[in-house]
């Protein structure tokens, strides 16, 4: 029976290998197409090395280029040179598909690189080195952009008519007015939390009243500016990068330049200016809401009535703390805005890069805010403030 190619196959049978006087004969049955590629590939492992192989396709009902590729690949795997194979009974449309793939087969087989690592992997040391160089280049670029942005700001002050007032107002609305609810909510909750935690300790010593000192000084001098700057970095810094990055992809920034305008003047100055003005205002809102939150819990928790709380607040809170906190805000804002704008304007040519740049903006902004704050702490200590 194996010698008789006329035998009808068992249902589901895809191929039959028979030994005849002229060599092996491989008969294909049914549908040889992509959707069955796995089972066909396994069935083809039956082919062994042979000098003379004939492939009969008289029973083939469906054939596509994946089927042809599969067949040729299996011949290669079995060590049978395709040139010595006799191709029998292929229907004209199947023969055309087969020829199309055979013509290119050498080229296709050579392309058998692995898909997983289209970008070659690097050793950890090389990765570390590359990242170090990249960070250096990034900081170098930031420095240049920072200078250019300051020069553009100075130009805007010298020639106020070049300032984009409408854009400035729109940005101010975005970064300041629309940020008030989230800033208020977060700082209120922080105020509540600090008062609660301080209260637990202070109560042990009967020092309830000093909770007011702790909250007022802590909130105005440190927590207010840091927390608000972090919110703004996540909210507005990320938005700057995403907006400018998308504009760069859509070639809008090139269009601005081509129209003889300066992207720095049109896009960066309004954003930097708006954020520099907005952040101190938001910090003020944050300070007020944080203290208010503390006052809310002071009454039920510590027995401090609002009147007592406010009286103590007036005595305890030296205004210098408030001013120091407020003075840090524009510096934070400058860094957040410049980093956000530069990361957006240097986005590479695809959408993935916008996402990466936005993430990077938030990380860089928050880290620089913390570093600046540490610097300020040392500076004010030295100045005796």
């Amino acid at each position, binding site marked *: 029976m194996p010698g008789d190619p006329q035998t009808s196959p068992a249902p589901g049978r895809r191929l039959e290998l028979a030994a005849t006087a002229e060599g092996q004969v491989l008969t294909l049955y049914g549908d040889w197409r992509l959707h069955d590629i796995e089972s066909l590939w396994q069935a083809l492992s039956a082919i062994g090395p042979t000098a003379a192989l004939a492939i009969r396709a008289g029973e083939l009902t469906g054939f596509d280029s994946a089927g042809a590729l599969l067949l040729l690949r299996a011949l290669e795997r079995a060590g049978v040179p395709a040139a010595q194979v006799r191709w029998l009974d292929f229907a004209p449309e199947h023969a055309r598909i087969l020829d199309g793939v055979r013509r290119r087969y050498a080229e*296709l087989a050579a392309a058998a690189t692995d*898909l997983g690592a*289209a970008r070659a992997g690097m050793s950890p040391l090389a990765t570390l080195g590359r990242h170090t160089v990249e960070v250096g280049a990034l900081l170098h670029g930031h420095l240049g952009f920072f200078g250019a942005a300051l020069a553009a700001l100075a130009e805007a002050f010298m020639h106020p008519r070049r300032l984009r007032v409408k854009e400035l107002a729109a940005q101010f609305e975005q970064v300041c007015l629309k940020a008030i609810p989230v800033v208020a909510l977060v700082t209120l909750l922080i105020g509540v939390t600090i008062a609660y935690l301080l209260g637990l300790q202070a109560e042990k010593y009967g020092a309830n009243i000093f909770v007011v000192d702790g909250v007022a000084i802590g909130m105005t001098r440190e927590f207010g500016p840091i927390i608000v700057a972090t919110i703004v970095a996540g909210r507005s810094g990320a938005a700057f990068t995403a907006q400018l990055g998308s504009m760069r992809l859509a070639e809008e920034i090139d269009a601005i330049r081509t129209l003889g305008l300066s992207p720095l003047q049109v896009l960066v100055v309004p954003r930097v200016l708006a954020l520099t003005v907005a952040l101190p205002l938001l910090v003020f809102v944050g300070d007020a809401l944080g203290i208010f939150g503390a006052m809310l819990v002071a009454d039920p928790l510590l027995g401090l009535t609002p009147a007592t709380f406010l009286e103590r607040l007036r005595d305890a809170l030296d205004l210098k703390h408030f001013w120091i906190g407020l003075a840090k805000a524009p510096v934070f804002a400058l860094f957040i805005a410049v980093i956000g704008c530069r990361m957006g304007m240097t986005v590479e040519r*695809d959408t*993935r890069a916008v996402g990466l740049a936005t993430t990077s903006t938030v990380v860089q902004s928050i880290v620089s805010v913390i570093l600046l704050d540490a610097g300020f702490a040392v500076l004010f200590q030295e100045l005796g403030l």
Partner: protein
Amino acid sequence: MQQRSGRVAEVGNPVVEVERIVTRFGAQTVHDGISFALARGTLTALIGASGTGKSVLLREIIGLVRPDGGRIRVLGTDMWSAPATAVAAVRRRFGMMFQDGALFSSLSVAQNVAVPLIEHTRTPAELLAPLVALRLAQAGLAPAVGAKLPSELSGGMRKRAAIARALALEPEVLFLDEPTSGLDPATARAFDALLRSLVDDLGITVLLVTHDLDTLLTVVDRVIVLAEGAVRADGSVTEVMRTDDAWIRAYFAIRTMAADAVRAR
């Protein structure tokens, strides 16, 4: 086996059937009863002035935008009333090339082409790379292009890469949105030849939206003209050219005008 008998039964039936499609955007009616059917193994172009809803119609056919009325069947399955599994099965049997390619920007070209193969077939690992290379070759790209990122390709190559991805599952139908827009004439003509070979060599049914007169005149079997929400003309290029309609005459006159202008120099 079932697959095979299904295919045999389909021969002769239209591959794509569009029946009395109505589309409205707010108060504006874009399509008002559009009907046509595509026969297997044909290359059909959908043309019309800007704003006549060609791309919208294409999106309705492939099941991305829901029409306000009418029926659409692709390979015998109603795209808007069949169960989700049936629609998903049909989606694996047609390919779509979006206007700018819509390649996944975080993946290399080869990985883009491999996505449908990995998701929908159980292609053995040692066959995947040559199969991807075959798809690239069928779209007229060298295997080396596979290692590049979409952002590193020229416009024409990006379109070819998108075709390679659309061809990944050996589709029976291929939809293309403005395949030659933004290409230089030589590249565009090579693209036309590629489309023709997909129809002739692989037996794929192709429907494309185009503005390109040369595509129509050289490779297309049939032209469907959309105007004012309806099919204004439908037939071979020569039949459509003879239609007595102002827009169609103006459209085809551009060619004769250009030829006259060159001669006049």
